[in-house]
């Protein structure tokens, strides 16, 4: 191997090992681990967290007629990437629900959709135990109870309207809060203001006599960039 080639190879070796070492050092010191997507290639944080609760996402579209529709999994697919769950269940931070919703609504036939609710279902993992194991732990029957929490309200075009904290985070806050926290926002108070309601629909708001009053930010859409209603303090 010529000298120049050996120097180049040494540079490659040093760079590669240096990047691996940087990743390990950052991970050990909890520094810059989320600074850039490239860190995902050098930080080995498999199984870094855990929860005693299982959760599932329900993407429910509400039509103008008041009917509800399943948005995910989409009607054309039954793909399970890693087990028995569809793709949208592997979105822990709910960063991609808007894209999934938009794509499904674009590719399907349906009545005009008013809004899409992203609902989280949570239950204690002990209810996942199969019957033989359950009977070793417990004497009584299994009665799984799920807790539901609306996490996001999304417009039909995939834009996020409102978002709420996870149910589990809310419970953690309640457990340590000295003073009572504001009550949890229920479904009634989740109704949008009339002005906002018009902006969630992809048609001319003047047709219903309610011109949109929110300020347009030049995005070409009537949809407000910021929800004028005050967000709840905690969920």
């Amino acid at each position: 191997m010529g000298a120049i080639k050996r120097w180049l190879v040494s540079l490659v070796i040093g760079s590669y090992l240096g990047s691996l070492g940087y990743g390990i050092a950052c991970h050990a010191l909890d520094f810059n681990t989320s600074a850039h997507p490239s860190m995902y290639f050098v930080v080995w944080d498999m199984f870094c967290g855990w929860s005693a609760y299982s959760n599932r996402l329900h993407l429910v579209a509400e039509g103008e007629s008041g009917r509800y529709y399943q948005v995910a999994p989409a009607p054309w697919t039954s793909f399970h990437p890693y087990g028995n769950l569809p793709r949208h269940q592997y979105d822990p931070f709910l960063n991609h629900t808007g894209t999934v919703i938009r794509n499904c609504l674009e590719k399907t036939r349906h009545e005009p959709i008013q809004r899409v609710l992203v609902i989280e279902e949570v239950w204690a993992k002990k209810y996942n135990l199969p019957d033989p194991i359950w009977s070793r732990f417990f004497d009584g029957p299994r009665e799984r109870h799920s807790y539901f929490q609306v996490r996001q309200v999304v417009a039909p075009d995939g834009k996020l309207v409102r978002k709420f904290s996870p149910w589990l985070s809310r419970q953690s806050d309640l457990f340590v809060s000295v003073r009572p926290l504001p009550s949890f926002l229920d479904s009634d108070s989740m109704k949008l203001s009339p002005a906002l309601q018009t902006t969630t629909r992809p048609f001319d708001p003047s047709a219903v006599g309610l011109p949109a009053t929110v300020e347009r930010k030049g995005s070409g859409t009537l949809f407000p960039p910021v929800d004028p209603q005050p967000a709840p303090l905690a969920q």
Partner: protein
Amino acid sequence: MAANIPVSVSEPPGSGSGGRGLRASIRDFFFAEEVPYGLALVRIMLPLVLLYVMLRRWAYAREFYSSDGATAPLADDYGFRNMLPVPSGTVAVIMVTLLVILLVTLAIGWRTRISAIGCFVIYTHLNMLDCLSSFTKYSVIASHVLLLLSLSHCGAVWSVDAWLSREPGQPPPRFAAWQRRLMQLLIGAIYFGAAFTKIHTPTFFSGDQLRFWLMTHINHEHPWGEYLTLYPVVVMLFAYLCVVWEILFVFLAWRGHGRWIMLTMGAMFHLGTRVFIGLYVFPFVTTSIYWAFVNERDVANWKARLARFRSSDGSKHRAGQGISRLWQRRVSRAFPAMLLIAIVLGVELEYRLDSYGIRRPEGPHELVELDPAQVEPMLQPAGTVRPVDLVHSLETGTMLVGGHVVRHKSSFKQGDKLFAQCTVIPPHPDMVIECNLHDADDRVLDRVNQVVRREAFRANFLYVLHDALAPGEYALVVRCFGKEVMRRRITLTAHSDAEQSADELESAPVAN
């Protein structure tokens, strides 16, 4: 007949040639020449695993990887929007089709370097566009390995390229070992980093994290994992073994007994993730790159054993025959033509499959309507967690090990010590938990409570079942926030007269 392999080649530094400096050892470690058997094995195994992964996703290329679908770029999660270009639907189909073909050509070693580079670029790009259903840590590991393969001469042996280029009787070529070394160090770095993850998780060593992972249903089914939750001490032992192995791997996996011990433990560890957690692809990806630890001496030993077996079998090995130069040229030129044909066929097939169902005779799919009775409960206020969901289990046994009750039993003798362990589910508040003893008629015989702080996972209650308790059926009842949340039946039997006469226990309180 064993091949005559120099000792210093492809062996770690310090193995039999003493008196060299560190610089020379490092130079030999990376640049000693060898026949790239180990890389060839990785080149064959890893693409086959990735082929399974990508074939499953080929029909969904438009949905997962294109602007005509629902991409989920990893960069978005990091706050870097539009970092990578998102291809159109047809281009995404072309890319996935190309990737599938290149994985096959890489596995068989045809135009190996081009195949490896193509696989690395396309596989990494597409995976970064879909962090929901494509990109995980095994994809990251595969990308690393594909990069190293593309820098290597992994197609020099056991490949179509080798068959085309080599003359009969010509020995296999030798190259510097640095790519294989980097692959080995990558494996060590992965395990070392994973150990830090576990060290950062306090509940890993108490067994709680693993125990709840065994009950998690986001991967494939794993009934053995659920069964293992009955034995938290075993889970805890596995946790410690795992961390020790991960830390020691990069230091011991190079030669001698350490090599085969570390690799065997690794294979068992990954088999364990398959059996107990339900991971399917990750174990195959990681064990496929274990072949990077194969060196020339191993291959020579295998060949020697194979030769002995064939000699004893009476069969004779025929030397390979070369092919004519005409056919060599024809096969080489077939590569781009083959890619082009595959792309055209792939695009046409995907169009005809119509994954979205838009071109169906009856039109696009309709949204599935949900029963309002199913939806309305979802829209009700979630409320706070029920007391019964604050408690995971009540286990009874006779001993505590590592904070977990062991020797589980529900039938005890008079004089036994009963450990009742109430495991709680986080998050929970600071609370008072009662574990009361009831008789067969549900009368409270003893009331005991403990304060369980919010950071605690377990509350232990010790009952000494002295002979003031008559043999019969009893129940341990757990209460919190004024409600009964759990009940376990126990049976108390009399101990023999011989034991009673030797018994010097005072009539101690029933429980602490």
